[in-house]
């Protein structure tokens, strides 16, 4: 197969085949999904970091304060104050829940976009149709998290339904779009495999560079660590925490009914600790697995990262170091408080910077690829 030299010899990894030029052409499905996917992941991570620094802890403090106020109101027999405080708790929890959902869905849709980008050569549709699928996917992948984010602010204003507002409807519609696009890809893959056609040559799948192997092996290790931690948490703490959740709330309300202030205060304090323990364990488990998946996916895309080899290795190292440090620091938050929390935020920034560097490398690659295809066309006398 004819090769097109994309850039000078100082960048030996930038050697594209004609099929690659076609599969990664401007606004092709693979390029849309790859750049759009990394954009979604980066946006979701930056949003998550901002949320963690400026909202999460303050929100948790507000929930705790309102729950305490509700318990104290129950203690003095003030039913109206109890209900008012619980209304506040509900509002703060909704605010927190929708922000977490925005962060999670943005990143997960980004991951799915990257996976679908890799699978594109196996999807047996025309390029034009694949491009449409990619646009539908990206539209839904942005609409859902934006809709979820707005749920807290839009509420039920002008909604035709009793419990679901316009923001929720928009989010659900985004979910439908993503679902349709993924289903279309599944059908395309099925058609490809049924025909038993030969798999197209794809440099992404044959690359065995140092940085690619680092990311692949590190990613699998992170996923395994996350699974083992999740299994340990489920076996040792999950059911215990659920039972404690109920028993502490029962102590609070029974203590309030009996007028026992000390019981209420102790239960409130323990409840705060319990919520913290649950949150850090779940966050450590989820982040370890998600960063592991991200590392494996980025391993496949290393041939597209147009940076010097030494820098590619460095950024792969930064991504893996941040991916390991973040869940470890989150787990240490229960013991070392804000110091560990700050380190976790810094680890999150390391992942963001590494991913941003790879994204810029891929953008450089697309520019060089487009430039080469224009040059190649002009040399062969084809209209540009």
């Amino acid at each position, binding site marked *: 197969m004819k090769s097109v030299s994309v850039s000078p010899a100082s960048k030996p990894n930038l050697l594209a085949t004609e099929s690659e030029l076609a599969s990664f052409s401007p606004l092709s499905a693979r390029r849309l999904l790859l750049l759009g996917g990394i954009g979604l992941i980066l946006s979701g991570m930056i949003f998550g970091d901002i949320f963690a620094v400026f909202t999460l802890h303050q929100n948790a403090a507000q929930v705790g304060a309102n729950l305490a106020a509700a318990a104290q109101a129950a203690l003095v027999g003030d039913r109206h104050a109890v209900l008012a405080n619980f209304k506040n708790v509900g509002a703060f*929890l909704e605010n927190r829940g929708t922000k977490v959902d925005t962060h999670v869905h943005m990143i997960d849709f980004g991951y799915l976009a990257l996976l679908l980008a890799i699978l594109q050569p196996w999807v047996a549709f025309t390029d034009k149709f694949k491009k449409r699928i990619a646009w539908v996917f990206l539209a839904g992948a942005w609409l859902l998290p934006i809709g979820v984010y707005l749920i807290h602010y839009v509420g039920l204003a002008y909604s035709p339904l009793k419990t679901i507002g316009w923001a929720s409807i928009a989010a659900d519609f985004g979910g439908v779009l993503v679902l349709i696009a993924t289903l279309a890809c599944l059908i395309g893959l099925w058609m490809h495999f049924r025909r038993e056609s030969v798999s197209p040559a794809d440099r992404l799948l044959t690359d065995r560079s140092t940085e690619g192997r680092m990311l692949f092996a590190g990613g699998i290790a992170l996923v395994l660590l996350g699974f083992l931690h999740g299994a340990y948490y489920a076996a040792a703490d999950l059911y215990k925490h659920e039972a404690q959740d109920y028993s502490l709330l029962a102590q609070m309300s029974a203590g309030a009914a009996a007028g026992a202030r000390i019981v209420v205060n102790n239960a409130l304090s323990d409840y705060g600790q319990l919520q913290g323990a649950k949150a850090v364990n779940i966050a450590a488990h989820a982040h370890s697995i998600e960063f592991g998946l991200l590392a494996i996916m980025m391993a496949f895309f290393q041939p597209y990262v147009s940076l010097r080899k030494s820098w590619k290795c460095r950024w792969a190292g930064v991504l893996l170091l941040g991916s390991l440090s973040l869940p470890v620091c989150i787990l240490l938050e229960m013991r070392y408080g804000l110091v560990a929390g700050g380190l976790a935020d810094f680890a999150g920034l390391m992942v963001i910077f590494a991913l941003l560097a790879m994204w810029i490398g891929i953008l450089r690659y697309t520019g060089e690829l487009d430039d080469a295809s224009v040059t190649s066309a002009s040399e062969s006398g084809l209209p540009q």
Partner: protein
Amino acid sequence: MSGSRRLLIIGGVALAVWGMSYGLWYAVFAEHQALDSIGASLAESFAAAADRSPAIMETSLDRYRQAKYIYDRQVDVHGHWIGLAMLLIVLGIGFDRVSFSERFKLFLALGLLLGAVIFPLGVLLQTTSHGPLPRAIAIAGSAFVIATLLGSAVGVVIRASSRASAG
């Protein structure tokens, strides 16, 4: 393309579609009602405590426990099905890096797919039955996933070390 890779990729995308459909159904028909029920029952139990009505307080707290138990599992199921689906796809794409015979790789792929389907299913079944069976299904599913992932990791390491020694 080998059968094991095909199984992981098709199975993974199908599981992702299934997990998203479940999430969509849940968001439209169950989530808002579940959150309302959790919030209302907890508020009612504390309001009953303020009224010094222990019977209503206990009934409301019990309703809260039931609703929270179901809500947590339904959300977990959605997240785990999609997360495991992405793992299946990504492993399917890179499964040629696993250095075992195709027969054993097919066995690993089957175990991984089975685990990815039944682990969240076991968690979901816990919302209908508190008996040991759903928990056993969930444990078996997670054991399948961890064991097959460990097997795949060993396959990657063997290949990497054999390449290193050959080089």
